[in-house]
């Protein structure tokens, strides 16, 4: 098994130029935006002279390339810079908010699997029949509803009307955090479910029709036992890569969901940083998200390798 994970270090090395490219693109793109942090900070009393003075004080009057080189120099020293808005190390802000977004994503992943697997099984074991149509209708609906609307509806129904959950926020204790994150995670899960269900349903139908399931059935396997032992693992293989790709997209979705639910994660940090032109924070968050997507990609392949012994990414890469 470990042998087959030899591709991981190679992947990590490949990530370096990708991340370098991300710094380059993000740095120059954010500087293309009109307006700088001094304009954002000074508020209604901003005048051209005062903006120029503050820009100078913040080092924003230096040539862009020099600013970029300084940023890269600091980055190699492990220093993400100082937030212009908060005058605090950016790493402090990112490390405060990243775990929140990560918990939200993982919670969403768990919920979406908890919804998808049974529904896909229900649909695939009776293709074309009532329950299959029901599940397919649900996926269509899930795909058609905008995330923020689903979020607001869940708040209205489960928080305001039923009073079961808080209306947004993050809570103070560890237990509260999960309680507060339930509705936003459910919203993200509902967005993610349709693709997972469809993929899982299709591959399950495929697997159910295969010779080895026929063999297993002839040997007396049936029902949940057959599904768990012989079907799910094989049907899950294509779904794993779909989940991997979706998690990458989902981190973009958290930007909206965090706003609707007032979750103080990376998405909220990013939106505020963009509005305030807090360049160091924008760069750090973008870098973090890029790193996250790369790690998800690698993890997806690890899971892929683990559940399908036939996959050997290491040999392919060595060849």
């Amino acid at each position, binding site marked *: 098994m470990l042998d087959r994970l030899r591709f991981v270090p190679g992947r990590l090395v490949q990530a370096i130029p990708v991340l370098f490219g991300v710094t380059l693109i993000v740095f120059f793109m954010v500087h293309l935006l009109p307006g700088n942090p001094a304009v954002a900070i000074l508020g209604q*009393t901003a*005048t051209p002279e005062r903006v120029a003075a503050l820009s100078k004080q913040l080092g924003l009057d230096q040539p862009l390339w020099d600013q970029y080189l300084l940023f890269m120099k600091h980055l190699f020293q492990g220093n993400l810079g100082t937030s212009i808005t908060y005058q605090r190390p950016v790493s402090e802000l990112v490390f405060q908010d990243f775990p929140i977004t990560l918990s939200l994503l993982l919670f969403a992943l768990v919920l979406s699997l908890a919804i998808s697997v049974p529904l896909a099984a229900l649909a695939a074991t009776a293709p074309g029949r009532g329950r299959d149509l029901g599940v397919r209708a649900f996926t269509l609906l899930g795909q058609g509803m905008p995330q923020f609307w689903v979020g607001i509806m869940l*708040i209205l129904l489960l928080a305001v009307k039923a009073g079961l959950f808080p209306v947004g926020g993050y809570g103070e204790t560890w237990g509260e955090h999960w309680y507060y994150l339930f509705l936003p995670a459910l919203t993200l899960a509902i967005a993610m479910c349709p693709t997972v269900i469809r993929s899982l349903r299709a591959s399950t139908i495929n697997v159910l029709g295969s010779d080895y399931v026929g063999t297993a059935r002839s040997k007396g396997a049936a029902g949940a036992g057959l599904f768990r032992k012989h079907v799910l693992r094989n049907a899950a293989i294509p779904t794993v890569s779909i989940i991997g790709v979706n998690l990458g997209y989902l981190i973009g979705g958290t930007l909206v969901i965090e706003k609707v639910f007032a979750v103080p994660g990376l998405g909220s940090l990013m939106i505020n940083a963009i509005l305030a032109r807090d360049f160091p924070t924008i760069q750090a968050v973008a870098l973090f998200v890029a790193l996250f997507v790369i790690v998800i990609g690698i993890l997806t392949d690890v899971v892929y390798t683990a559940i399908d012994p036939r996959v050997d990414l290491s040999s392919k890469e060595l060849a």
Partner: protein
Amino acid sequence: MTRSTRLRFTGIAAVATVALAACGGGASSSSGSGGAPVDGGTLTIARSQDIISMDKTTTFDNNSIYVMEQIMEPLFTVSKDGSKVEPWLATGYDISADKLTYTIHLRKGVTFSDGKPLTAADVKFSIDEDTKTGSDGWGYINAAIDTVTATDDNTVTIKLKYAWAPLLADLSLFSNAIIPNNYGGKTKDEFYAAPVGTGPFVWGSWTKGQSVKVTANKKYWGHKPHLDAVTWTVVADANTRKLQLQGGQIDIDDTPDWSSFSSLKGTAGINAQTFPSTYEEYVTFNEQRKPFQDVHVRRAIASAIDRNAIIKTVLFGNGTVADSLLSPGTPFYDKNNGAPTFDVAKAKQEMAQSSVPNGFSTSILISSGNPDQASIAQIMQSELKAIGIDLKITQLDPTAQKQARLKSQFDMVAQAWTMDIPDPDEWTSFAVDPDGGSHSSFSYYDNPQVIALNKQAEKETDNSKRQELYSQLQKQVSADSPFAYLYYAPYVFAMKDSVKGFYSTPLGNYHLEDVYKTK
């Protein structure tokens, strides 16, 4: 012969605070009378953005300012109706005959929340600290101050470079709030990470992007706050704030948007309230661009806008037609200044007299994510069509919009102003004096007569003469119409019925020591 104007306010502030507590939010009866004030509890206020910093001298955002005002207090403060300055940490002052020296008497028995007594040395340090920031902070507001001297423990002498009527108003600004001399021995950064002041609340904790908390100052010199603590939480989405209020999770929704406000108004258990403000929404004409050099064009547009339609659509009726450069909450506002009103015939007549009698095409710059400005621009688009003007709408994100304004890259721009001090000078110098640094609020309006009036009013300490000068100024600016005034909007808050005694002054300050919760 020397004539010294001696004004003494000993005890007035104490009476004022008692009176405030007694009528607790008398601005409206609904948040007022709720029996005897109850002590204890935490007030939770949700608003769209986090604080940025507690550094009073270089922070420009209101979210931070409203929090720091609970902790650090100035020598003078604005009265509840916003019309005048009242002594706060000071008890009174004397002015020399040449109007260049102010002797300020400090209130005795005031201590900082760390127990140290307030002295003149603290006052000198605090005002000098602000002045030093110059144009990088609020220091420009102290430009008239030459020196601040601690004459004795309870007296401070301020010498001015020139006669300056707005001095007391300037001293009432949060940036001139009093902090311990030399930051109480800390560095500046250390101090503002956990500021100490004489205010009713003391710094508690701050989780960036989530919440900030202050707790009651047990040693407060005035009447002790009823609440144990106040927490401001960050809830970016207006709809979520509204739902949180309905769900009982928060006590106050700070600045609900207008649609939330009108729907919350009819909700049981919720008290949606307006308070007079100095907020004025207006459109600036860029006189560097054609054809806005032409006063007829400016007047034509100012006459073509149906303000009532805008107020109905944008504010759901919660506002009044703006009819002056100044707002009614600003001292020296004069209603009778002949500002253009909605009159299509007049607008057409002005167009006929202008350099572009057959109309022209132009654009208005607005800020994205600001539904109010989007509606204003759309209404103006259809109204200006009636007088032959083809209006395009340019939408940029807020910072980019500000940048375009600074660089004069616009034809017309929708803007708003709120006052920071109870004196018109801060605004008039920004709006009509090109020396104010903003090229007359980006209009490039330059009328020597108006500039002279403004300068004269700055030096005039006699209020009736100042009124006369500001009346003339308002009249002339309305005739020149470098701006089209649109509306005055109130401050809005939606709160639970159980919240009592909450009010906001026209400058947006709120005195949370007067607030209590009944349940």
